[in-house]
């Protein structure tokens, strides 16, 4: 018993050394159970966010204003679904099935990015999501390209390329509105007003209040802290908003010469908690939509399985 514990401790030491040396951990390598759990939580949450994110943006596919915009949006929503797929597969390398993950999403045991609990009300919201939400995702994911778990890091490299494309497209479509007529400009400003704070919330609680942060940093599952990432996002977004001639809805936003960063106001943490805990505008809709579609698809998945079985049986009979 003691010997086993010694071994475990030793293994963990070797494991930590590999992490410290910037070596990637691969699926077959030994890893502490908590590392595995922590990663499953983070990767599946990330996968669910991609998939749930298809809803608010998908909401505008049939109403996109031009043929080109429609194709760009449809392709973007597809990309997000594709990100969900890569991420589900990288989580599966940790010994959890996609069915288990989907069930955790549907029962509320697993979370997804809270930002997708806000509604897309106008066409400008589609541009604002591309610019801000994909933008925030990139800030986070660039740091995750160096995450310690190999399959996750590699998925992030692929995902990041597409996210930057999305961000540019979103910004470009918002630019057309910001430089359009008064109504369009107002539409763009209103979208920024509604999406700005939820975008800052995407980086999670302050470092001091973050439950999973310090262990995740030590294991290099996370590479930068929530507050650091949030700061980079603000710093990159301010000039982008200025270029559009739009005003970021924060009266405390100010360049701080000494820090070399923008100072900004405090997030409404009550709202943050309320939405995370399931009481945002769209939380119930998002999950019930996911459940409904999943249930409606059951007979199709059953048919597919039944057909494959029959086909296999026929082939077996033929070869016998």
């Amino acid at each position, binding site marked *: 018993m003691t010997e086993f514990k010694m071994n475990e401790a030793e293994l963990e030491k070797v494991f930590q050394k590999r992490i410290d040396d910037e070596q990637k951990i691969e699926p077959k390598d030994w890893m502490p159970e908590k590392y595995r759990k922590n990663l499953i939580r983070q990767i599946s949450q990330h996968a669910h966010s991609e*998939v749930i994110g*298809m*809803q608010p943006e*998908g909401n505008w*596919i*049939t*109403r*996109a*204003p*031009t*043929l*080109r*915009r*429609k*194709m760009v949006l*449809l*392709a973007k*929503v*597809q990309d997000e*679904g*594709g990100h*969900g*797929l890569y991420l*589900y597969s990288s989580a599966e390398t940790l010994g959890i099935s996609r069915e288990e993950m989907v069930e955790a999403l549907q029962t509320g045991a697993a979370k997804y990015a809270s930002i997708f609990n806000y509604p897309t009300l106008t*066409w400008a919201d589609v541009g604002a999501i591309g610019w801000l939400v994909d933008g925030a995702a990139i800030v986070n994911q660039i740091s995750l390209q160096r995450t310690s778990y190999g399959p996750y890091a590699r998925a992030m490299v692929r995902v990041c390329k597409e996210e930057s494309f999305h961000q540019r497209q979103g910004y470009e*479509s918002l630019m*057309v*509105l910001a430089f*359009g*007529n008064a*109504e*369009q400009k107002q539409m763009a400003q209103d979208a920024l007003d509604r999406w700005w704070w939820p975008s800052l919330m995407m980086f999670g609680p302050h470092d001091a209040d973050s439950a999973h942060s310090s262990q995740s940093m030590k294991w290099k599952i996370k590479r930068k802290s929530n507050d650091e990432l949030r700061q980079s996002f603000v710093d990159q977004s301010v000039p982008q908003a200025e270029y559009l001639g739009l005003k970021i809805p924060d009266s405390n936003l100010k360049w701080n010469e000494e820090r070399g960063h923008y100072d900004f106001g405090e997030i409404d943490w009550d709202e943050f908690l309320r939405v995370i805990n399931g009481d945002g505008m769209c939380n119930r809709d998002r999950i019930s*939509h996911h459940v409904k*579609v999943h249930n*409606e*698809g*059951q*007979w*199709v*998945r*059953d*048919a*597919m399985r*039944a*057909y494959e079985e*029959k086909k296999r049986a026929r082939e077996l009979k033929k070869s016998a």
Partner: protein
Amino acid sequence: MNQNVNKQALFNYVLALGDDAITMGHRLSEWCRNAPFLEEDLAIGNVALDFIGRAQMFYQYAAELDDQGRSEDDLAFLRDCRDFRNLLIYELPKGDFAFTMVRQMIVDLFNMEFLEQLTKSSDERLSAIAGKCIKESRYHLRRSHDWVLRLGDGTEESHERAQRALVDIWGYTPELFMVDESEQQLVQAGIAVDRAALMSVWDNRVGQILTEAKLQKPEDSWKVEGGRRGVHTEHLGHMLSELQFLQRAYPGLQW
């Protein structure tokens, strides 16, 4: 004079092909985030994208032929129901997954034959567009064919749903092969495809697939038509009100 008649007829023809593609693309795009599993969201989205891209190519060409100087987007977003010329089968609501896939197999088979003939059009532009689209349709058909087999020969429920879909769609299929006078002129000029002549090959192929899928080919007991004359089902108006919402609510702007 003859040239003029032909130009109007050609415009109408190209426009109709654009309308076929946009209505089909719209219906398929409705599956995105609503498909039976995530891989299928992506696959159906690809087919939707092909059809919307096809609409864009036809509308671009139609816009060049248009006397009123409308753009491709004007053609898609600023015409009302009576001016839409798509065949009715394309505008029918997506229904359940069986309806979507049975319809898809029917129109993919039709499009394979149609596009192959259109590549031989004396109109170079149409023949070039057809050349691009036919590769896509080959892939679409492979998919929809597979799905019809799985559904027809899957479970009892899937079989029933596929059979019901087939019965509900069947009366819209004769319209695929009806050619009006203006189109007939273009057929004679070697520009348009003689759709009536595609019927027997299509009928044969559909029959083969249905037998393979253990589905019953419906009786030819009813048919409706009108799309090419702008007489549509009530569904199209709702589709257009969604498709055209922004262009109608905020007229004359860039997006």
